[in-house]
């Protein structure tokens, strides 16, 4: 929860700062800020059995219009995935999904650059969002037989990455914004090599693979308010 509050405060500070910029941009009828709740659904072709084939993510995002076709934003998104409590043989454990599973949660902090297409005017219309993100992943305590000691302990690691979203934004009743698009991403240090999974650090490899796959291609939907 503290991470969520930290990131949200960061977003608010950014917005406040941006507000003092005398942007030569009309925005949407003079409104230049959008705060929204964001969700993302992506497909997992490899480890789908654990999560019915899909990754579900949710978060918050902000966007501030700086020019007619350009805006900047900060966003935060998180998702969780399950893994078996006891892993010594990943494949045998995965035969029993849902049995003694633990949660691995990833938190992503994103800087968003929105480029709206020629005919559109930010924050309305078709856009391409370039995103740079930093992800940290933390697991629940679990029993890892490959560790130095046989003990219950959490694992945490981080990833960085980039993504591009091609989407469209609509505004209803001059206040509600709806954004939808396709997101394509790439996470560094997170290639889904099966060797990683079979190696001695199965959970870390599994987590990174999950991050990579979850970012690879997904449907992005946001609902927010225009201020």
């Amino acid at each position: 929860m503290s991470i969520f509050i930290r990131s949200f405060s960061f977003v608010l500070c950014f917005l406040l700062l941006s507000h003092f910029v005398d942007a030569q941009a009309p925005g949407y009828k003079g409104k230049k800020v959008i705060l929204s709740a964001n969700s993302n659904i992506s497909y997992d072709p490899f480890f789908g059995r654990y999560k019915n084939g899909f990754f579900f993510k949710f978060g918050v995002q902000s966007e501030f219009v700086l020019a007619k076709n350009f805006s900047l934003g900060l966003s935060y998104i998180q998702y969780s995935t399950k893994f078996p409590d006891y892993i010594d043989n990943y494949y045998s454990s995965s035969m029993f999904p849902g049995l003694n599973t633990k949660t691995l949660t990833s938190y992503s902090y994103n800087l968003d650059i929105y480029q709206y297409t020629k005919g559109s005017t930010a924050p309305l219309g078709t856009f391409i969002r370039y995103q740079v993100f930093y992800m940290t992943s933390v697991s629940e305590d679990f029993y890892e037989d490959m560790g130095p000691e046989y003990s219950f302990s959490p694992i945490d690691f981080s990833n960085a990455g980039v993504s591009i979203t091609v989407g469209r934004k609509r505004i209803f009743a001059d206040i509600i914004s709806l954004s939808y698009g396709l997101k394509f991403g790439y996470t560094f240090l997170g290639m889904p090599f099966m060797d990683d999974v079979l190696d001695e650090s199965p959970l870390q490899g599994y987590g990174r693979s999950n991050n990579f796959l979850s970012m690879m291609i997904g449907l992005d939907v946001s609902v927010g308010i225009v201020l």
Partner: protein
Amino acid sequence: MMLKNNFIFLLTILLSMSLMAQKDYIPVQCEGEIPSDFILRTQYKIELANQNSTAYKSSKLSKTANEEFNNTTNFYIDYLLKSGKIIFGTPMNDYLNQVGALVLEQFPEIKNEIRFYILKSPEVNASTTNQGIIFINLGLLAQLENEAQLAFIIAHELIHYKYHHVYEAYSEEYQAKYNMGKYQAKNYENKFSDLMQYSHKHEFMADSLGFLEAYSKLGYNFDEAMSVFDVLLYSNLPFDEIEFDTAYFDDENFKLNSKAVLKTPELISNPEDYKDNESTHPNIKKRRSAIIQLVTDHENVNKEVYVVSRRDFMESRKTARFEMSNLYLSYLQYGKAFYNSYLLLHTYPESQFLYKTMAFALYGISAHQNHGEIAAVLQSYKKMQGKSQRVFYSFRKMDKKTLNALAVKALWKYNLKFPEDQFMKQILEKSTYDLVSKYGLKYENIAKPILISANTENADSLLAIELNENGFRLLSEEEYNKLSKYDKIRYDKKYLEVFGDKSAPVEVISDKKNYLKVLASVRNDKAFKQFFNGIESEVKRDEQKTERDKVYVTKEQVTHFILVNPQYYKVENDQIIVSGSEEKEAYIVKDLKSSARQLGINMELIDILQIKSDEVDRFNDLAFFNSWVSEYYSLTDNDLHYQIPWQNAYMDAIKEKYDVNHIATMGIAVVSMDASIGKKFFAVLGGVIIPPLLPLAIVHAVNKKHRVLYYFSMVDIETNQILISSEDNLQGNLREDVISSLNYNALYQLKMKNKKR
């Protein structure tokens, strides 16, 4: 005949006097109650037409095709009616209605369905719509010789209506387009040829039945049914053939360089039997031949040329001819405007309007020539024949400096004669500014005047009355000028046959600094010196300004503007969609008004959808604004936005009435197309390959592809500068949020400009 000529002469003098008694000619405006044709919604008209399409029951076309016809024709006719280019309620209309009513007595079955209007177009033409509207162009009225010819043309048009020629032509085109009936397995050329033949059949029918069913029973002279073809044959020429004397430009100090003087204009040689296989109308020879038999087969009992009123005909034609100068200037056809006014000046030598239009035309030609754009306002003299060719030749061959100096001289003289005309004073300043700034002309460089004794040789004595050995009687200039345009053409041909080209040798003048002499005759005028020096100082001041100083910023904060005739069009698969468009337009305008209010700007709307039947003044304002906007943007298209539009001459009254300095126009078009089969296939294929995208892929394949084209433009009419020009071209449908965004963005530019001040 002699008596008739004398009578015409007297009448001309009387008309001329009555014109002089008026303050001056004012461009024609509609009067009285606005007819329902202009007020009713297009959608309503289409629905009515769809319900009442009993006339097409025997048609080969489907119900959808008939509805498409009603949709398209009503849309385009309403576009014309609501543009302000149609005149109603004027004395000209009253006269047209009277002649129309006379002809309609022969058509009792359609009598109550017909309306006559005048179309502000210089083209010599008349047209009929399937809705019962007959348009008579001003260009035609200006060229007709008498009422009988007008009656014949009306009879011709009424036959088109009575026998549903418009619908039948559409039906034929439809069948050709979709390879139906006899058009199956025909190539494009054959289809086109068949359609033209079909159209020729209608024209022959309208000529002959118009004569038989109506004209022959009205008491008019049958010869006029034949002579109307002369009007059509020579419709490319001005309404009269009067020699243009280039001495118009000359005075005791200046003569045009010889290279700018055409020795002999090309003889008019319009052949009657021109190729007509690509024309909707058969050639004149065929039409004349088709009707000549009918004329000779019928006894011409009454040989009247006027049944309703000769006086009203003359008055209407005079108005039409004056209006032509106004129209030509509005359409940037300055050469034609100049010669049209020149022709009228022979009959109305005291008309301020004619001097004004000629001086303005000179300014317009000079301004365009200064920027290398003369072709946009002056037809090539090589494509012309007859006496007007000399005008176009001189303007083309004159050097830029001379042309500019001549414009200044004409404007100076006009201002001396009519000093109260502030608009023309502004034009004089502009033209002189160009002369000084572009060509560096200084007052001290203007040639000093030389005084020579006035040559009082009477021009009327140039052509003596004599009979040569071939029996050809030479006419005096006065006699010649009294001939009709068509008799002049015949006389000129005969003259050339008998005497050959015996034009007087032209004195050869070739002086590269000739332009310095143009203003010599006004040089010693103290007021001119003062004026010219004032302009020189202004040019110097402006030259010292930096580029930054010259950047245009509106003089005052924009708090109020007029939005003129907003447009909204929806096109689906190349078919215009009227249904719901008027409501959408109303919504767009309402939203724009709301955005304006949000930005602290007051918007006033002048739109046909808001005008009531008793608001003819507002309708005239709309017509004026539309015409002004059209002229203004024609100028800006040629990158001549610094040239003052002609119709600014009438802007002051409007500015005062609405207390406004800014005029805006806007338009939105939504173009929708079905996705092609290939695109649909690849969309679905993509969805199959990446399952999560399948719903999107299906939506993509099924939905139409939309494109929204938007423009908004605002002009500062005080400075003639474009204040806002916003154009957007975006994919997607025109939803409410998109409308709001586009409207707000357009006006936001204004806020930024206000801020910069």
